[in-house]
Structure formats: C-alpha cells, structure tokens
C-alpha cells in the first residue's frame, strides 16, 4: 500500500510539477503584462475620459482617425520621436564600436576601464536627466560657459528643436554607449588573430582591418544592439519629461519642440485623463516601433560580410 502511494506521488511529480514551477511566471505575466497591452486596444476604441465621470462609449476607430488626420500635435510628437531615434541610435553604435576597439587591447587595469565605461549605464534616468538639464542650463550651465569661453556664444538648449534634441540625445548616448561597447568587446575578443595577421600580410591598414574584418565579424552583435537601442529609443519619455520639469513638463517644451510620442501618450493619459485617446496613441506607437525596428534590423543586416 505504502509503496503504491509513493509510486503515485512520483508519477504526479514527474507529470505535473513542471507546470506548477512555470505557472507563476505565466500567470503574473498574463495578468500584469499581456492583458493590459491587449486591453489597450479595446480602450483605444472608446471615448473614455476620467474627467467625464469614467463614462466609456464605444466609438470604433474615431480616436485613430482623429490622431492621424486632425491632430498636428501627434505628428509633431512622431517627428520628434523619429528625430531623437536617429540622433541617439546611430552615434550610440558608432561610439560603442570605437570604444570597444580601444578596450580590445592588452590593457593594464582592464576591469577598471570596463567598469568605467559602464558607469553611466547604472545611474538612473531620472538622476542623469536632472544632472544634464543643469549642465545644459541657459544662464549658468557648464556647457554654455565652455562654449562662451571659446567664443561660440550661449545656446538656449531648451528653446530650439535642433538644440533640445541634441541635448536629449547626449543624455541617452552618454548612458548607453558603454553598455553596447561591452557587448561588442566580447565578440571582438572571439575573432581569431590569424585573420588579422593574414590581412596585415596582404597590406591592409588598421583602418581597413577595422571596417573589413572587425565590423563584418560583429554583425550579429551590431544587429542586436541596433534592435535593442531602437526599441528603447522609440519610447523615450523620462528624458524629455525631466529636461523641462515643472507644471507643463508633459508638453515637452513651450512649443512641444521635444515632446515625444510616449510623452504625448503620458500627457493625454495622465495630465488630461483621456484614456481612450492615450490608448490609441499607445497602439500607433507600438506599430511605429515594430516598423522602425524591422527597418533598422534590415539596415544592420546589410553590413558586408565578405
């Protein structure tokens, strides 16, 4: 009798225990990850504003029609998102390649240098943005002081579209370049030296070796980094929000010159409490992100591998 019970328990254990071990992940993700994302699609087809007493009326695609045909702020935000995506992603990858190349030598104090380039990545986006906002200050910012020193004049970084995008891109690039550099470094170390030796015998310069050997060999990591960076940079919110703290933070500048799509979502959802409209922005941003990520994947894949 006793062995029979044990035997049954053992069979149960083999058959069902694995499901119990993976269940917490799937349950929690379904409830707090997947369900809200899908439900966003439903809310986006409603006229649902908390300020109207939480009444929810089904209105079909009206929110989308409004956004796409009659909302200049939405297109402004999408334009800013694309501009910032370009200004952050490309320099991030290029600088990271250069830094990885520097780190890929037999350095003394290797760990020290590697930790040093990663330092920006561990600081919080809130702290970084507040520090940079101070550095980019118009009247007493350090950067303007240096520009003045060289006779370049002061820039009101927040005021213009180009200048504010440059400042925000600087924060993102500063924070993420080291992370990508370490990913590239790991793969650089796996490239056999014999490849370089052969190239050197053929008379290839260091520059040619870098572009003809190193970069093509790193193609999978460059694709990975481009995709990760694109997915992150299409959703910038904290940087433009905190670059201009204060009552009107959600508009991304006095003239919405640095309001990103994610920030516009935040403004509609949590400053104006228009949940239906904000959800439609969320879906459009999701679609745009998937499209741009796909395009940058294709672009990164075109790196030559002779």
């Amino acid at each position, binding site marked *: 009798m006793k062995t029979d019970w044990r035997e049954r328990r053992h069979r149960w254990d083999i058959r069902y225990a694995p*499901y119990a*071990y993976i269940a917490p*992940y799937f349950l*929690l*993700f379904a409830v707090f*990850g*997947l*369900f*809200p*994302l899908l*439900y*966003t699609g439903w*809310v986006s087809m409603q006229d649902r504003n908390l300020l109207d007493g939480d009444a929810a009326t089904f209105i079909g695609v009206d929110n989308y029609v409004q956004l796409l045909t009659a909302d200049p702020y939405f297109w402004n935000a999408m334009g800013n998102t694309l501009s910032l995506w370009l200004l952050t992603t490309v320099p991030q990858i290029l600088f990271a390649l250069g*830094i990885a*190349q520097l780190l*890929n030598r037999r*350095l003394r104090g290797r760990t020290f240098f590697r*930790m*040093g380039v*990663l*330092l*920006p990545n561990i*600081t919080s*986006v*809130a*702290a970084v943005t*507040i*520090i*940079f906002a*101070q*550095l980019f200050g118009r009247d007493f910012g350090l950067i303007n*002081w240096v520009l003045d020193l060289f006779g370049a004049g002061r820039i009101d970084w927040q005021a213009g579209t180009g200048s504010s995008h440059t400042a925000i891109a600087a924060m993102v690039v500063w924070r*993420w370049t080291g992370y990508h550099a*370490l*990913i590239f*470094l*790991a793969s650089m*170390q796996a*490239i056999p*030296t014999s490849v*370089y030796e052969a190239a050197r015998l053929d008379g290839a310069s*260091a520059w040619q*070796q*870098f572009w003809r050997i190193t970069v093509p060999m790193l193609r999978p*990591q460059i694709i*990975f980094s481009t995709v990760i960076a694109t*997915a*992150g940079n299409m959703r910038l919110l*904290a940087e433009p*929000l905190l670059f201009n*703290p*204060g*009552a009107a933070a959600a508009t991304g500048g006095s003239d919405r010159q640095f309001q990103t799509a994610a920030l516009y979502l935040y403004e509609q*959802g*949590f400053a104006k409490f228009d*949940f239906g409209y904000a*959800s439609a922005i*969320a879906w459009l*941003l*999701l679609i745009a992100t998937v499209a741009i990520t796909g395009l940058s994947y294709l672009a990164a894949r075109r790196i030559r591998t002779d």
Partner: protein
Amino acid sequence: MTSVLDRPAPAARPPARRGRGAVRLPGPWTYAALIAVLAGSAFPVYWSLVVSSQTPDKVDSVPPVLVPGGNLFANISRVFDQSDFALAMMNSLIVAGTITVSVVFFSTLAGFAFAKLKFRGRSALMLLVVATQAVPTELGVIPLYMMMSDFGWAGEIHAVIVPGLVTAFGVFFMRQYFERAVPDELLEAGRMDGCSSLRLYWNVVLPAARPAAAVLGLFTFMQAWNDFFWPLVVLTPENPTVQTALSTLASGYTTDYTLVLTAATIGTVPVLAVFLLFGRQIVGGIMQGALKG
C-alpha cells in the same frame, strides 16, 4: 580571455606592431583616449557631487565652481528635512528588494523546469517566454493603471511591486545557465535516491545556481531601483520612490539645484555601492551578451 593571456610574449613576435589589428599592444594614445572616455563617463556623476557640496549661491556663479565644497552634509539634511526623501528611500528599498528576491526565486524555479524537466508543450511554452521578452509592456500603462485603481492599489507601493515580480528575461537567463551548469547525471542520481523534483530544486539546483542567480539579482535590483515611468504613473508625490521623488523635487517653481542634485547623488549611492562591489560580475554578465537593458 584565456586565449589572450596564453599567447606567447610580445618579444617572440614580429617586431612590426603597427596595424596589427585587434589585439595589438596599447600605446600611450590608447590610454589617453580611454582616460578621456572615462572622464566623460564619470564627469556628470562627479559634477552632481560638486553641486551637492556647494551652497546654493555658488551654483549660479561665473566661472562655475569645479571642485567640491564643504556643504554636502548641510545639503543632505536639507533634502531629508524638506522632502519625503527618507520615505522614498525606504519605499525604493522595499520595492527593489522584494522584486529582486521574487524574480530570482521564480526565474530559478521556471528555469529549472524548462532546462531539466520533461513535459508536454515545453518548447512551445519556452518560445512564448522568449517572444514575451520583446513585448513592450509599458505601452499597456493605461489599462494597468485602471486595474490598480480597481484593486484600490493606486498610490501604494504594491502597485509597483506586483507587476515586477517576474520577468521573461530572468526565466530565459536561468534556463540558459542551468542547461550548461547542472549535469543531468546529478539529477538522475537524486531521483534514484527518491528525491522529489522540489527537493532536487532546493538541494541540488538552487545551490548550483548561485553565481548566475547573483548576477540576475544584482541586475534586477538596479533596474528596479532605477525604474521611473510606471512608479511616476501609479504613485502619488506623497508616497514616492526615489526616482519619483527626484522628479517632484526638480519640478518646483524655482529649482534649487544644490538640493535636487544632492537628492540625485543620494539616490545613486545604493546602485553605485552595488556596482563598486560587484562591478566585475555585472560587466562579465553583459559581456556574455546575457544581460540586456
């Protein structure tokens, strides 16, 4: 790494070092360039410390002060007197601590099942985990906020904790580790001795998981500590985390930068401490391509 170290001494090689490509010896210019990169990396953090150790009037001076002053402790006590920063620190510790323990526990459990146990639908379910990594769940903030309001959790820190209790990345990361690090023979031997799978998990798998679980834990702690968007949405200024308290401090009518940057410096100390103690492991984790941002 070893392949680099095991190579013969430089003297044994052709003398021409120029243009040797990837693993050439570093010259003074390499060090100079790297030190410049490092200075750029560290400067904003250093600057934050400089400002937070000055009196408010010094910050608006031309030329700017570039070295730390003696006012750090006065500013620190001002931060704690003039804002809820003590509460924010406590909240952030609870949030990041709970999330870290939970993610490590559930990830090792699920990772063990996916790597070492056989069950129907295993590969399909694993594929689902990998696919969910790519899902940008923060775009679901509006319904998530509505749910939290319905539960009566809006403004409470469980609203920040509960959605963070598991991550697809953690499950994936631990599965990869277990596949290589725990030999099947060891588990079979345990089975022969009549261990249930839960005992195997507890006595064999979990001890073997220690190095990877530590890296996952460090990384999870940092991300949870630094998280900004969701806490900003769901919490109120009266019950903040460190990051939302920073944004409240920065959005005052006139910004007192010594105060704000002192708070930013204090809020960076816990992750900086973790980084200084375990930076080698964190760098190693990223270089294995295993940790994503």
